[in-house]
């Protein structure tokens, strides 16, 4: 780790001010950033911890029924507090990493990082959630811009993720054997207006919507509906743990299983 300044502001305004300084980096639960710093792969001049800002943490239900999750809410808290309103999201959160990761890691940190193998981006995109920052709202469809890339501006702080709650939903993760991140993870969400399917772990472009499956499932929400479909292996990730073809295949298998699990 290189030396850096450390701040832990108690208000969002203070955090925004600190983030405007040279080479400032927001810190959520630190489950990605701290190991990166320890390996000296990043050298921010200033770390701004967001975890002392009370309004950024916690889960609540908005008047329109949407689930509002504060950016610094930990995976463990979401697993517990979202269980009644959005069980598929709670189950996803409860199966990230291990207990230590779940008790430190935050949804805002994960979404802002947009790791191509992270679980949350699939839920955010499939739910058609809205990412709120200090000064604007960004639709999930506009937020994820490829591996580790998002629509966030320099210094912009995620404050809340607002999830419309679907009628039915499920997330199916096929774990990479070593890291246990998603080798492929698929989140399926059925709304009155149609079905959304988001795939994480598979693509070189990061999380994406499988629109053919969405159309088929919107017409017939059953695993059979996608039996004739296939995903192209182009742009899929190929590495030690799976070829592009394998990932494309797994995305279909996991989609079917998510539909079955969602009932």
């Amino acid at each position, binding site marked *: 780790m290189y030396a850096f300044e450390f701040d832990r502001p108690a208000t969002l305004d203070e955090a925004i001010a600190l983030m405007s300084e040279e080479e400032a980096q927001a810190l959520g639960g630190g489950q990605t950033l701290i190991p990166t710093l320890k*390996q*000296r792969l990043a050298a921010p001049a200033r770390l701004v911890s967001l975890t002392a800002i009370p309004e950024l943490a916690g889960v609540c239900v908005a008047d329109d029924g949407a689930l509002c999750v504060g950016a610094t809410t930990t995976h463990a808290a979401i697993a517990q507090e979202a269980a009644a309103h959005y069980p598929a999201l709670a189950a996803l959160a409860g199966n990230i990493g291990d207990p230590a990761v779940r008790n430190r890691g935050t949804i805002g940190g994960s979404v802002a990082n947009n790791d191509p193998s992270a679980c949350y981006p699939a839920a955010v995109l499939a739910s058609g959630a809205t990412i709120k920052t200090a000064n604007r709202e960004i639709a999930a469809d506009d937020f994820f811009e490829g591996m580790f890339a998002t629509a966030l501006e320099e210094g912009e702080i995620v404050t809340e993720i607002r999830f419309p709650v679907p009628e039915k939903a499920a997330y199916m993760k*096929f774990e990479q*054997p*070593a*890291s246990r*991140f998603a*080798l492929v993870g698929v989140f399926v969400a059925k709304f009155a207006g149609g079905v959304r399917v988001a795939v994480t772990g598979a693509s070189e472009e990061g999380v994406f919507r499988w629109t053919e499956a969405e159309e088929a499932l919107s017409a017939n929400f059953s695993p059979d509906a996608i039996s004739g479909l296939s995903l192209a292996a182009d742009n899929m990730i190929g*590495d*030690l*743990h*799976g*070829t592009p*073809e*394998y990932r494309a*295949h*797994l995305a279909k*298998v996991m989609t079917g299983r998510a539909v079955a699990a969602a009932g």
Partner: protein
Amino acid sequence: MPKDHGIGASSKRREDVRFLTGRGRYTDDINLHGQAYAWFVRSPVAHGRLNKVETEAAAGMPGVLRVFTGADFEGVGGLPCGWQVTDRFGEVMQEPGHPVLAQGKVRHVGDPIAVVVAETEAQARDAAEAVVFDIEELEPVLDMKAALESAAPKVHDDLESNLCYDWGFVEENREAVNAAFDKAAHVTTLELVNQRLVPNAMEPRVAVGDYNTGTDDSTLYTTSQNPHVIRLLMGAFVLGIPEHKLRVVAPDVGGGFGSKIFHYAEEAFCTFAAKQLRRPVKWTCQRSESFITDAHGRDHVTKIELALDAEGHFQAIRTETYANMGAYLSTFAPSVPTWLHGTLMAGNYTTPLIYVNVKAVFTNTVPVDAYRGAGRPEATFQLERVIDKAAREMGIDPVEIRRKNFVTEFPYATPVAVEYDTGDYHATLDKLLEIADVAGFEARLAESKARGKLRGLGLNCYIEACGIAPSHLVGQLGARAGLYESATVRVNATGGLVVMTGSHSHGQGHETTFAQVVADMIGLDENMVEIVHGDTANTPMGMGTYGSRSLAVGGSAMVRATEKIIAKAKKIAAHLMEASPEDIELKDGAFTVAGTDKSVAWGDVTLAAYVPHNYPLEEIEPGLEETAFYDPNNFTFPAGAYACEVELDPDTGKVTILSFAAADDFGNIVNPMVVDGQVHGGLAQGIGQALLEGATYDEYGQLLSGSYMDYAMPRADDVPFYTVDHSCQTPCTHNPLGVKGCGEAGAIGSPPAVVNAVVDALQRAGHSDITHIDMPLTPSRVWAAMQG
């Protein structure tokens, strides 16, 4: 009734109290006054000419004491290799130099280029980034077969080629083996890879060097399985320090699995730098650093052929193996693919003719050396896989083909130079079929099928040569060391015993099991016996712990020393009771005169030995301390049979192990619970190899699986609850305890069972074209195989 103390009792591991409560004292817990810290600058490329190393900027950084480079080690010895293999043509192997710090070339990612020593570790690390080096990159040598082509770049410019040796065994049998293949009714051929593994002991390596300016003594604290061996290798071959001026301490060590046998550059560096700087120097390996510096394991590419007659009797075996040595010869590397591998190719079977060819190859990768099982897992895997394939090709039941070929008469001299002293392979196989409920498999298969899953059953036998090793034999085979063990038993005046053993315990539980043996021999409470190991200053010579040798060899030395103690104590007791020593009996810690009611307690005798007021001083010396060396006259041959049942998800290729059963014959057992634990650990490692683990290099020689994000270690939910049994016991015939060793069996015997089970599941599901899948059987690989 199970025993509650002594030999045969499941005494709880006394050392676990300190390990489980965070009170172990590991090398990294040792901090000396005035200690400085070393940080290694390592090659980021696999192969290159090291043109220049600039250290001035780093030397001027805060806290830096000195920056060392290869130039500082000119005139200092290189890291030695402890085994010289002679090739098929009678020539000795090609043996390259192995400098402590790179000189002229870097040969693998992680090869040390420079070391910064500073007041703190952070300062050393900061300054290490300021060391500037100029490496002219060269084409890396990675593929073993390509490495042997004449146009291939050379890892070592001063060697003729990248071939370390081309070994034939038994070379005289070569033509007879070929002739047997020519007339065989059936030949089964299998090409396979026994993949490279990273050892991953829980405790990373650490070294602390210390130098006493007043006495000119050096001390090295290190994470080692054999401190005396390190003292000999480092003292005699690298730094030129005589053994009486060098102390090596290996305190609590958190796992080794072979990787802590070897003498590493960091040990020599810290000892050297401490003397140069007149300061203790400490190095603690980072986990990511351990991936590119700890000697790796396995990495064989093999073609095996099995010749059978029409009834399935094995006629001959022929193998060709390429064994990766990595960039340098690690301490015992040459012995692993040869004498620890070729000698096991007979397995449990009476195959009359065997020829093993091994080409050991230098590549621009981390050196490869012994890793739990060392050569024997490679032998067992290829043999038990090809037998399974042959059984399927010939339509013979896999159990029956093995039974047909079992060795049943002992001693049995194999055609590959070893003699099995005892065993009963039918008995362990019978026991396996019972504990694995093989008869109930069909019903379980139907149940899996109903859920849309494929189920498979795989089984295999194994044999290993352990209790390493008769010195006279290994000397003929190229070992540059003896492989005896020693023990000193010191009895105190008040009756307690301290046993100083050359065996090192780093997870095996010796502090408990060795105490059980000595306490049992005398008839004392185990708590009266303390086991001391791991420090050359307070233990006699020791060759260390590996090759499942501790109890068979180290324990035997301890028994011999204890016998001497008992013999002397009887003389003292005889004197005290005015009887003849021949009439003295020792039972439950008391000496009696046969046929009388005369008795003296153990403590009376030990007190007399140290307070010799009434003592036969004209016949025996005061005191009660004895040393014994034990050199075995044969290997031991643990053997057994393993079964694995898997379920396979046809949609994803994911393999789940539902059950694993192990029936082992370890001869006599000192502590059944500790044996269970050793088998469990070995099975987890073997299952890890079969399903999860694999070190993979890219085409540039970068280790892709260089962290736990990509190198999959087995976790609790990857392994089943095991069914283990060691009730089949044919005691070893040539050591005093009748023990064979149990530390490696699980890792040796389990990979073929897992792969046999997966192939069985696929075959039963109609994938008749799938006869083998290379390990690790990841979901991706299994799925790809199913796609044809």
